[in-house]
């Protein structure tokens, strides 16, 4: 079999896993009892910079390294598992908010006659890219832990920010659901 066929098979496998994880994450969006409503899960005290700082802290390797040096293997492993679970929940919350904003956009778009098809296509494409990158991010966090996923995280958040900007541009007065995102200054140290 040629190298291209292997590459194609790998790409299909990754896409399949991403889709599976994305559906799993989507189902969890409705688990209000365990994770709260979309905003309340993600936000700390309303929309402020603390939320982005908190996300940066979740993905920061500093604590994991410190705990690994200072305490027993069992404690370090437990701490790593907790951080991974937190990072995955954080990602679910971000995805939940993006999905919510897209749903709100679709609702508003139905009533808006002045929409540009090019903008809608752009939005759809960026949403697809976000789903794909966040699916891969979910996989990387799950397998390698939050610090290794920090670089990819920046890319996913940039896409989410673009999505937010596009929904704002397309429907300036739209009722988008705000997603608190990291700006460049607050990207996690990798």
């Amino acid at each position, binding site marked *: 079999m040629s190298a291209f066929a292997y590459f194609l098979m790998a790409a299909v496998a990754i896409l399949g896993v991403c889709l599976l994880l994305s559906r799993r994450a989507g189902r969890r969006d409705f688990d209000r009892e365990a*994770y*709260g409503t979309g905003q*309340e*899960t*993600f*936000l*700390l*005290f*309303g929309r402020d910079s*603390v939320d982005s*700082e*908190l996300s940066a*802290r*979740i993905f*920061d390797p*500093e*604590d994991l390294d*410190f*705990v690994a040096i*200072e*305490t*027993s293997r069992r*404690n370090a492993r437990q*701490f790593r598992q*907790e*951080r991974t679970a*937190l990072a995955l*929940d*954080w990602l679910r*919350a971000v995805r939940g908010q993006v999905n919510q904003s897209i749903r709100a956009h679709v609702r508003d778009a139905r009533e808006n006659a002045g929409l540009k098809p090019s903008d809608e296509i752009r939005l759809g494409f960026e949403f697809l890219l976000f789903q794909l990158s966040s699916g891969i991010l979910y996989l990387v966090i799950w397998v390698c832990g939050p610090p290794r996923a920090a670089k990819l995280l920046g890319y996913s958040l940039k896409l989410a920010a673009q999505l937010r900007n596009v929904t704002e541009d397309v429907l300036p007065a739209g009722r988008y659901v705000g997603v608190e995102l990291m700006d460049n200054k607050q990207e996690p140290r990798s």
Partner: protein
Amino acid sequence: MHEELKHEGVEAARRDLADRTLAKIRGDLARLIYLASMRDYNTGEYHHEGLACMFTESVAGKAIASCHRDVFKRLLLCSVKELVEQLELYARTNCSSSSELAHVWAKLQPYRVTVPLECSPLASRFFVSNIKAALAILESRQLGAHREPQSALPGP
């Protein structure tokens, strides 16, 4: 107008609480414990008689809640290393030893009731996880400190 006055009142109460009381408490962890201790477990409202006399019950409650959130935010965003230092400072000023604090806190988990009401479950879990790790480190350090003098003793 009324809202503006109320906001000013809360700000003044906040400053009063910060300058007169919180400034005298050493370390953010001790401040957090103090502020959380003024909260009614059933209603989630804060009570401080002195502050309520100077201002009003409602303004005092809002000022304490605001200080509680600020202190919690600072601790939430600090590293585990800084949390260990905070715990050591808290133990030095409040308990007999760090090992005693680590042992009792690991069992009773009093840090869970220090989380502000408005805090998200994610942030709350992050805080609890960090405190647990900091306590484990404190305990490890104490165990190491106990072993060192023993190993320094001459053999039989």
